[in-house]
């Protein structure tokens, strides 16, 4: 049953991807990309990777698509006919594809419980992590504790993206705000609905943030969802009103603080005599210490991701408005 669903979803995925090559309307390509993301998230769910599906749906289908649309608004929708030949790329792709298929020949059988991948490192996570860390969600345990350094790196990657986007686009200065522009002025229905839902979405983000230890979710997802709430606000009410709620400078500070919060947990555990990011030393009882550590670093991740995603969106949005005014 699960396999059948997988196959159907995979087929749909392949069709979507192939169609993307041929469409010249970039808007359609981006729409299809949104679908592609949704579909792959569905496959992830089917393969038991709920946390990943969560992230893919919110990041891939949500943030990426919105950013791509923002870019399209500035660069135009049509792809021009390409003049250079497509034989060489096709050849490279075929070689790579052949290599991949060759590589799959000796791949361990799909889903077999005795594959090396399930026998070497993973059993410890599955069997011991509930005891060593005390959380039912193993993904969170591994993410935040066993491989906490990766997650720190990942938070820094997000931060680096913020630096990149700021360096490239900057955020419009406040004093240029004199041009009145406030989203959908005429859409009263949207206004009402948005006003009603945004608090609920933020509430849900907080739920995801703190429930991530027990169910799917965690800092990244929560940060993205909270950012999505503000993006909705910005889309509906316009950029200048959103700036009044959360200013861009404040967000940049927040992004830095998130990273620092994460790192400070690491330094604190060093100070307590453990290794970097060794949460067991944070409290007398190692399990309680792990718990504290994970909550704080997830919070740090959440803050950074929220601030960065929203800042990036602001940067794109202010570009779009500037070009609209001209």
């Amino acid at each position: 049953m699960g396999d059948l669903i997988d196959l159907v979803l995979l087929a749909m995925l392949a069709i979507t991807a192939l169609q993307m090559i041929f469409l010249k309307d970039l808007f359609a390509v981006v729409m299809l990309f949104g679908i592609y993301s949704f579909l792959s998230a569905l496959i992830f769910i089917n393969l038991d990777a709920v946390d990943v599906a969560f992230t893919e749906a919110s990041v891939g289908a949500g943030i990426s698509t919105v950013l791509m649309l923002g870019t399209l608004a500035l660069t135009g929708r049509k792809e021009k006919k390409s003049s250079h030949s497509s034989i060489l790329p096709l050849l490279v792709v075929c070689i790579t594809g052949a290599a991949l298929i060759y590589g799959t020949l000796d791949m361990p059988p799909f889903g077999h419980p005795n594959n090396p991948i399930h026998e070497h490192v993973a059993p410890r996570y599955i069997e011991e992590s509930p005891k060593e860390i005390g959380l039912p969600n193993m993904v969170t345990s591994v993410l935040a504790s066993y491989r906490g350094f990766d997650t720190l790196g990942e938070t820094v990657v997000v931060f680096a993206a913020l630096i990149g986007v700021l360096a490239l686009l900057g955020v419009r200065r406040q004093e240029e705000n004199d041009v009145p522009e406030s989203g959908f002025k005429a859409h009263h229905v949207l206004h009402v609905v948005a006003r009603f839902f945004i608090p609920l979405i933020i509430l849900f983000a907080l739920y995801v943030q703190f429930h991530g230890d027990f169910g799917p979710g965690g800092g990244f997802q929560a940060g993205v969802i909270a950012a999505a709430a503000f993006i909705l606000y910005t889309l509906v009410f316009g950029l200048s009103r959103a700036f009044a709620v959360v200013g861009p400078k404040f967000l940049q500070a927040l992004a830095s603080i998130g990273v620092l919060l994460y790192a400070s947990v690491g330094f604190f555990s060093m100070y307590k005599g453990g290794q970097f990011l060794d949460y067991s030393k944070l409290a007398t009882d190692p399990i309680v210490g792990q718990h504290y550590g994970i909550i704080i670093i997830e919070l740090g991740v959440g803050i950074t991701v929220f601030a960065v995603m929203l800042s990036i969106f602001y940067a794109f949005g202010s570009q779009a408005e500037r070009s609209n005014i001209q």
Partner: protein
Amino acid sequence: MTEVYTAVTIAILVVMAMALARAISAPTVYDRILGVNMFGTKTVLFIAVGGYLMGRPDFLDIAIVYALINFIGMVAVLRFFEYTAPID
């Protein structure tokens, strides 16, 4: 009950495929958006029913995220049309 879930899941899958087909080969841009939107709502339902099918109904959070993202995507698309002429 499992049979019903299975049947319903497959049926939703079929509907999703139809919506996808619509989104791929749409006569106007709006049809495409409509297809995408429909695809999104059906996906939410698919996850909800699928969660029961797999016996892990605590994954409804993901369905909520889908609904949310779908809506935001919709608003973003419409906002996008304020900048560019939608008619080909």
